[in-house]
């Protein structure tokens, strides 16, 4: 068990170090997220006020889109120098490698969300500071679910043909519950009279989803990554 966390930490540290030197994924993903929100703003904001309660949906769509981009880039980098194979050859537990990759992805997406949330609040007049704890819990649980499935699929697709288009095709249908729960939960917090009980229901559903899919992913990572 101690080994598991050590390996996972080493993978996270390696990813962070590579990223800190180039800033490639962070900078491109952040800018992409910004562009997505702006495109939505041009389409959905009329005379200074957004059409309907769209802010929750935009926050989650932007998160999913930029998450997909980040997943693709992160593993593309591992493929170019064949470093993923090197990682797989290392005498370490495969699930620990997956856990490290997932943690790195979560850190990256958390960073993107820290920019996205204020931006959505600003452009779509969403009350982001109304229930900060609930909102943070929703984002954390939702992002974990999305990244848990995404990290496994992106890792599997490294060797596949047409992986760029395959990742969203495979990932979005599977993460439909995350999107529904995230958007509905956030909308419950953003509406005129916030419904905290409903938001808590969605957080619980997301946590349950996380538990099931992280377990499944840890379990499947070994057989799918074996050549």
């Amino acid at each position, binding site marked *: 068990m101690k080994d598991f966390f050590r390996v996972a930490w080493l993978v996270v540290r390696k990813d962070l170090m590579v990223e800190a030197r180039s800033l490639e994924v962070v900078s491109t993903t952040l800018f992409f997220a910004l562009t997505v929100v702006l495109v939505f703003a041009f389409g959905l904001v009329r005379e200074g006020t957004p059409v309907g309660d769209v802010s929750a949906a935009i926050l989650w769509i932007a998160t999913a889109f930029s998450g997909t981009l980040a997943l693709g880039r992160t593993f593309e980098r591992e493929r170019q120098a064949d470093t993923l194979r090197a990682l797989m050859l290392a005498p370490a537990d495969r699930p620990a490698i997956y856990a490290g990759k997932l943690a790195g992805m979560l850190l990256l997406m958390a960073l993107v969300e820290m920019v996205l949330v204020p931006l959505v609040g600003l452009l779509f007049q969403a009350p982001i500071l109304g229930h900060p704890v609930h909102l943070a819990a929703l984002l954390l649980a939702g992002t974990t679910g999305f990244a848990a*499935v995404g990290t*496994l*699929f992106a890792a*599997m*697709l490294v*060797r*596949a*043909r*047409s992986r760029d288009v*395959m990742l969203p*095709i*495979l990932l979005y*249908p*599977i993460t*439909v*519950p995350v999107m*529904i*729960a995230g958007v*509905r939960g956030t909308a419950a917090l953003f509406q005129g009279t916030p419904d905290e009980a409903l938001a808590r*229901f969605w957080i619980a*559903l997301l946590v*349950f*989803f996380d538990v*099931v*899919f992280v377990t*499944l992913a840890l379990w*499947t990572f070994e*057989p*799918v990554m074996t*050549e």
Partner: protein
Amino acid sequence: MTKLNQIELALAGAMLAVAPWIIDAAPYEATMGLVQKIFYFHMPAAWLFLLAAIIAGTASAMFLFGKKRDMDGWALAAAELAVVFGIITLVTGPLWARKAWGIWWVWDARLTSSLILWMIFVAYLLLRRYGGPGADKLGAGMALFGLANVPFIFVSVNVWRTLHPQTSVVPTLPVQMGGPLWFCITAFFLLFLALLGMRARLERQRVRIEDLYLAEDEA
């Protein structure tokens, strides 16, 4: 084609050929009238769609964790059937809904879960077709995740209002309606069995030929 497949196909063909008369002879439903008759094809298709999805997910899990290569053929065959029966379900459903509810589509729990499950298997087939080498394992992961996903989709959509008629109505149907329904279910099921067996066999033979080619290349 094995002997069993031939018998299944012949029986299914004969039963489906007479099915229109049997459905025609069944009494009209009190409130929906003629429209309700689509249900004799809709429900068997929907059941087999779910059955195919369960077979694909289970076979994929056995392929991944049990290292049973034959299971991949079963998973692929079942996934293709899930897409076919899914289309039948998703086309006949809205046709009925247009008349019964007045709209083609609602974001109800059953409808949405069926649509997403269907999309998962279309994605699976796309992956198998265009994923290149190693797509069998990736597909197995996808099918496994897809199946595990169904309860989550169902619960998450169920928080919105549910319109779909409950299946608990089936045992309470009068004989004149229950009879044709079970007749159609049997016909569809036989067709399903024949197609599943044939497709899985085809896939096993394809894998064997591939292995023979590889063996010859090495020799």
